[in-house]
């Protein structure tokens, strides 16, 4: 074990170096650029055996990944924002063909107006594509989840592509001390990729990507949904094995001071770091505040979120993406559907859309959200269901 000063991007690259995938097909885009840049240097310097395919677009990047993974090669890539948007149709193909590609997604706002900074609009749009999504709080998590994602995606009962997300610039370009596992240990942990009947198995020829009409398409989409449900069942064991390997304590969600909490914030990614600080501040004042961080967003950890929130008096759900025409952001609707269909007792849950286009989520906003949530707890009613934090309305 050693500690390196790394940005989120370089932490992703370091995990990719240790995984040493057979193929990486990628196109650089801000703020993911440094992943592709640094990994290209590693490939050029002979630090990895990877076949690096510099493609002409993200559509081609994901298409090359599909071909490569189907051929039987362990394949990785990375993207952001407009790049993920350009990959769109191929994202669904990768999932539908059940190809365990692992991708780093450095979350960034979507145009227009053009913006290069971090929010979750890109990743949230892909939440129903059949990709497993893991949202990381910091560079350390990016590094570790990047390694674990290989085992998640390639698990014989899962076989779904997996996206490891981090906040653009906030995480991707901030340098942290990152604890790095030994190369040999990571190599042993990820193991050898052994696909079942890949396309290059010429002794057992097969076809992938054939048309399916009204008679079979539905069965295969059902299979994919089942695989996502199976992933939910398998993930606790995968996390347990990874924690044993890494000495960490990761899970599908992370609870902070939730045991006796009366009010809480539920959020994803880097905002959780600041929120934890405000929880401590409120605890010092005798307020029973807590935080739920959702690490695995797809499959959505329904049981874990319900168990963590069941004794609350009020909850605020933070969304770094808007869902324009729905009643609140994507995380909010998931949380409400989980809580209100599993608990007999109803308590106020409100939504805060924040941080679009990389706008800071600062301490003052979090204090305000906690204050309003405390008011909701006191009255037992939601004062305002969908709120916007930090925008000049």
């Amino acid at each position, binding site marked *: 074990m050693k500690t390196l000063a790394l940005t989120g991007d370089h932490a992703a690259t370091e995990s990719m170096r240790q995984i040493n995938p057979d193929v990486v097909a990628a196109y650089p885009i801000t703020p993911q650029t440094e992943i592709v840049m640094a990994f290209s240097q590693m490939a050029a310097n002979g630090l990895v055996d990877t076949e690096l395919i510099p493609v002409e677009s993200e559509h081609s990047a994901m298409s090359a990944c599909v071909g490569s993974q189907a051929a039987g090669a362990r394949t990785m890539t990375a993207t952001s924002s407009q790049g993920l948007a350009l990959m769109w149709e191929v994202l669904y193909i990768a999932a*539908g*063909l*059940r*190809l365990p590609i692992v991708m780093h997604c450095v979350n960034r706002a979507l145009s227009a107006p053009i913006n290069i900074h971090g929010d979750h609009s890109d990743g949230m749009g892909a939440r129903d594509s059949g990709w497993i999504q893991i949202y990381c709080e910091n560079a350390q998590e990016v590094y570790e989840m990047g390694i674990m994602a290989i085992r998640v995606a390639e698990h014989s009962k899962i*076989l779904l592509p997996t996206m490891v997300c981090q906040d653009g610039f906030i995480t991707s370009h901030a340098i942290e001390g990152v604890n790095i596992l030994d190369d040999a240990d990571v190599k042993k942990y990820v193991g050898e990729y052994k696909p079942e*009947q890949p396309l290059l198995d010429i002794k*057992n*020829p*097969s*076809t*992938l*990507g*054939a048309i*399916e009409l009204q*008679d*079979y398409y539905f*069965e*295969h989409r*059902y*299979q994919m949904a*089942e*695989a996502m449900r199976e992933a939910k069942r398998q993930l606790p064991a995968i996390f347990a094995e990874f924690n044993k390997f890494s000495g960490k304590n990761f899970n599908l969600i992370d609870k902070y001071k939730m045991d006796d909490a009366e009010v809480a914030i539920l959020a994803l990614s880097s905002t959780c770091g600041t929120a934890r600080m405000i929880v401590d501040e409120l605890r010092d004042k005798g307020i029973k505040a807590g935080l739920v961080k959702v690490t695995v967003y797809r499959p959505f950890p329904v049981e874990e979120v319900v168990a963590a929130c069941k004794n609350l008096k009020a909850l605020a759900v933070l969304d770094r993406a808007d869902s324009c025409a729905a009643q609140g952001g994507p995380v909010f609707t998931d949380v409400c559907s989980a809580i209100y269909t599993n608990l007999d007792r109803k308590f106020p849950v409100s939504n805060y859309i924040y941080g679009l286009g990389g706008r800071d989520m600062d301490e003052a906003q979090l204090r305000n959200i906690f204050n309003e949530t405390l008011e909701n707890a006191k009255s037992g009613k939601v004062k305002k269901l969908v709120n916007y934090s930090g925008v000049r309305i």
Partner: protein
Amino acid sequence: MELKNSREIPIGGKIILAGNAEEYNTGDWRTFKPVIDHGKCTNCLFCWIYCPDSSILVKDGKVTGVDYKHCKGCGICAEVCPRKCIKMEKG
């Protein structure tokens, strides 16, 4: 063909056996079927060359009939027949 459920089929729509398209009964897509008048046929094999579904049956250089399990009834054989000895009939 009896339809299988989601647990009985390979994942990801993979077809694990080569050449099994033959088992697919495309003949039931058909509205009109080609009927050959063997009395007028000169075995020029134009129909055999043009058939997009390899459904003209030939033995020892002679047209013996039509594979109705796979013939979709497109009518190309009737169109290209220089002797006009293929008729498209309902069925």
